[in-house]
């Protein structure tokens, strides 16, 4: 099969919006870290973005179908790297999430496992034999995502593990999930979560101390004014005090908002730019997501659609959980806001994911 591949078919509009969001992120990182020990993070973030854009172009050149054909190897490598983290990983803040790389950088395998999972799920559903999802397909797809998820939970990194869920969910939904299956998954999830949270004997074994604390302080922030409940409270104060047009950002600059350049970047942005600014950013994300969905619709094959929608699922989930946390709807989970939050792994993942989307788009005119 010969295909006509050209950068003319590259989604420049999408890239434009993505870079606009990144630019706002860099601006906010600059402002939030100006007089702190993190000063200069904005410049580093620019390097990460440039690196990400490069990685995106490279990724877009590799035929995604070729990747899909070799996905089982990638999958094995991904699971192995997660196991490697558990064995050789660097312990930081009570969790093993990073592998130290030569050159002083830390590498977080759980991020690129996300990419592998998007491809693996896409391959699985693309090759599925029926329009309706059978229970055995359901279980197999669940296992594909479930195994790495358990390994990440073991690190422990609940937040990242949760980001694997929407990949499976989106795949299953588009792959023909029946309403009975959806309902039973929903029920199992509700019962499971309630048991873990509210049966002390079980939650004692399942949840780590800090996780219990986070949940408890989400329910009652005043219990632990310096802990995660405090963070959410400060975040809400930051967002709320921004008002409609934004303010001086005393929450951010007074260090009331903890590490505002990463997970709470949206709170910092909302404080400085108000409701208008925050809504503008949400709109940009919405445009990006709609553009991605449009690319999914025009994908050359089923697998392409699943790949793009996998990216959409991960991105939407990140935005939901992160912004939800910032406005006080959700507990602290440690999930960054893609494209805006400071952090190399997160930026690289997003651009590699976008690279895959471009990859699919550039091959939309199949002959």
């Amino acid at each position, binding site marked *: 099969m010969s295909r006509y591949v050209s950068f003319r078919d590259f989604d420049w509009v999408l890239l434009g919006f993505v870079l606009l969001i990144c630019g706002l992120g860099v601006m906010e990182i600059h402002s939030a870290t100006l007089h702190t020990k993190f000063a200069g993070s904005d410049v580093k973030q620019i390097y990460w973005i440039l690196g990400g854009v490069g990685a995106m172009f490279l990724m877009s050149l590799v035929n995604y179908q070729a990747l899909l054909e070799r996905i089982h190897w990638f999958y094995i490598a991904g699971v192995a790297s997660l196991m490697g983290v558990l064995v050789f990983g660097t312990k930081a803040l009570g969790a093993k999430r990073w592998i130290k790389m030569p050159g002083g950088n830390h590498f977080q395998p759980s991020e690129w496992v996300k990419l592998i999972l998007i491809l693996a799920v896409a391959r699985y559903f693309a090759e599925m034999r029926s329009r309706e999802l059978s229970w055995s397909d359901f279980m197999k797809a669940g296992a594909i995502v479930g195994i790495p998820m358990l390994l990440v939970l073991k690190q422990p990194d609940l937040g990242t593990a949760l980001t694997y869920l929407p990949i499976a969910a989106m795949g299953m*939904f588009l792959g023909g999930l029946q309403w009975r299956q959806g309902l039973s998954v929903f029920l199992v999830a509700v019962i499971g979560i309630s048991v873990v949270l509210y049966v002390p004997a079980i939650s004692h074994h399942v949840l780590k101390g800090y996780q219990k604390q986070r949940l408890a302080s989400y329910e009652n922030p005043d219990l632990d004014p310096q802990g995660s409940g405090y963070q959410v409270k400060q975040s809400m104060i930051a967002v709320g005090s921004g008002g409609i047009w934004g303010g001086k950002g005393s929450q951010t600059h007074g260090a009331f908002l903890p590490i505002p350049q990463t997970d709470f970047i949206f709170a910092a942005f909302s404080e400085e730019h108000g409701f208008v600014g925050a809504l503008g950013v949400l709109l940009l994300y919405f445009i990006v997501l*709609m553009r991605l969905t449009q690319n999914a619709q025009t994908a050359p094959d089923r697998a392409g659609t699943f790949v793009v929608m996998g990216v959409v699922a991960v991105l939407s989930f990140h935005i939901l959980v992160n912004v939800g946390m910032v406005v006080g*709807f959700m507990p602290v989970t440690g999930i960054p806001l893609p494209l805006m939050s400071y952090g190399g792994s997160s930026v690289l993942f997003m651009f590699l994911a976008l690279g895959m989307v471009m990859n699919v788009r550039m091959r939309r005119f199949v002959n």
Partner: protein
Amino acid sequence: MFARDEKVSAIRLTAAQYAILAIFLILAYGLWRLQVMESDYYSLAAEKNRIRNVPVLAPRGKILDRNGRTIVDNYPSFSALLLRDSSRDLAADADLIGEGLHLDPNEVRARIRHFASMPQYEPIFLKEDITPDELAFIESHKNELPELDTIMVHRRLYPRNGFMAHLIGYVGEVSEDMLNQPQFELYNQGDIVGISGVERQYNAVLMGTNGSRQALVDSHGREVGRLGETDAIPGKPLKLTLDIDLQIAAEEALEGKNGAIVAMDPRTGEILAMVSRPTFDPNDFAVRVSREEWNKLVNDPDKPLLNKAIQAQLAPGSTFKIIMATAGLQEGIAQDMHVVCNGGAEFYGRYFQCWIKERHRVHGVVDITKGIYQSCDVFFYTLAEKLGIDRIAKYATMLGLGQKTGIDLPNEVSGVVPSEEWKIRNFKEKWFAGETISVGIGQGAVAVTPIQLARAIGGIASGGMLVRPHVVFPSDLPPNLTPASDTQDKVQVPLDAKNWQIITDAMADVTSPVVVDATGQTWSGTAGAAHLQGIDFAGKTGTAQTISGAAKAKLTNGKARFKNNAWFVGVSPRRNPEIVVVVLWESGEEGPLAARVAAQVIKAYVDKERSLPPKMADKPKPEGKVDVGAVWTEPDSDGGKDKLQGGHFLLDVGKSRVPLATAAPGIN
């Protein structure tokens, strides 16, 4: 199996888009809720987050004497503060704090609980006047204990050794009880206010208003900027009517004795000196007095905390005879009254003795003048019998006894002027005529304070013009602070010029070593030994029994508390005096001895008036060391910003300073 190019369900893709739209609408609602609907609430929360009120303490006003010399000053000292808005578990840190500041951790915790109801931004004062090593502890634990802070405060420096302690009073943390009183309702817990004396009476003048500094703080409670500062309004200096020189003379005159001295200018009511003994050191109260120390002071039978000049109500003894003489002369009875004193007389079936009988002598024929200078009891028994208790009570009340003088000091007591009506009201008993006879010589139920005697007898010597005593010049006070008092500033009591002359001349005879009576016999005034050469010094002695003679005889073990109180009321000059001095010497036994104490004060006054250096001031005394607090800045060894240091020094004071008042700067 379907082909690879079989499309994914378009409906499901659209559904996914709507799901994303729903997510975004929810998030947009979250933003709307915080930033539009509840923006005001969160803006306020953000303000509270970053603004911390740091108090700027207003120094209390100095207390000065009538010539502007400093009696009470302030010195800088450091206090340890606990900031509660740094959201740390203070109770858990209490152990470390207690260790570093030498406090009991449980006391620290108790204090945190005690102040729990106060607004969070108000710091708690943990310890006042901390030592340099405690200051160093706080400085070096800035990271471990960010809630600890120090503040420079101006602490009261009172004269040492209890000099003028009762009059000045002392300051302390406002108590729960005081906060419930209308006078203190505007104060907050932890405020330092006057607890007694002038410090309390004129707290509103002296205290000033604390300012505050609105500091911008970050989440660690570190100051990152300043928003504004409300300046502290320092307390105003307060000038007293007192004269330090005379006060020193009075303090020295009463040294080693129990009792009180009041010196007043009877023309104006200005108090020139006021002493009460035993005394206490108010510097001990300026920090926090320990319970033990406090109990010791409260339970001391000599009542060192009592300002006896206005709070001791005791039988006036023979000094009351001046009031009796005024009543007798004004009623037209005493002028021509001649009584034969045979060492005693019988009234209402009971024998009343004259003091002279103990000397195995008699007074013979006694008129009003001799009755005063020889303090003949028989004369005044007879006069009391003729006047009757109600007329005595009328004059005593007119002359201000049995009521507060209205002096501008807290907790003055009113004394007792007995009458028939008084006895029925208080004892539900009829007045016995025999009681009148005892009252005639200032015994029995009659009880006065030294300040009342000063006002009454000073008033009689001034031709019946009674003044309201005061320690602060009323003209210096802001109009809203003029003390509310029932007593008028000036009261004219009717006193005929002739009677005035009789009484004052007789009082001058009291201090004369040689007086010749109508029969040509030579006598001496009861205070003849206190005679001051070249000074017109008049007065009246008093020896008041604290227990009846009969009871005393039964309890012959001669305990000090059964000893007589010695009184003397002296004026100079005898008519329209410039000064009236009342001396109460508890257990002093003899009025004439009190007269010598009064003479010392009168002499110091007259000597000063005559521009002679007061004798008392240049008495050589051993030099002492004075504890002085100080702060200074020192460059940091790392070359950083200057560091504030604080400490105490023992300064050697030269002989030129009068030891009684060494701590009060300005006394030379």
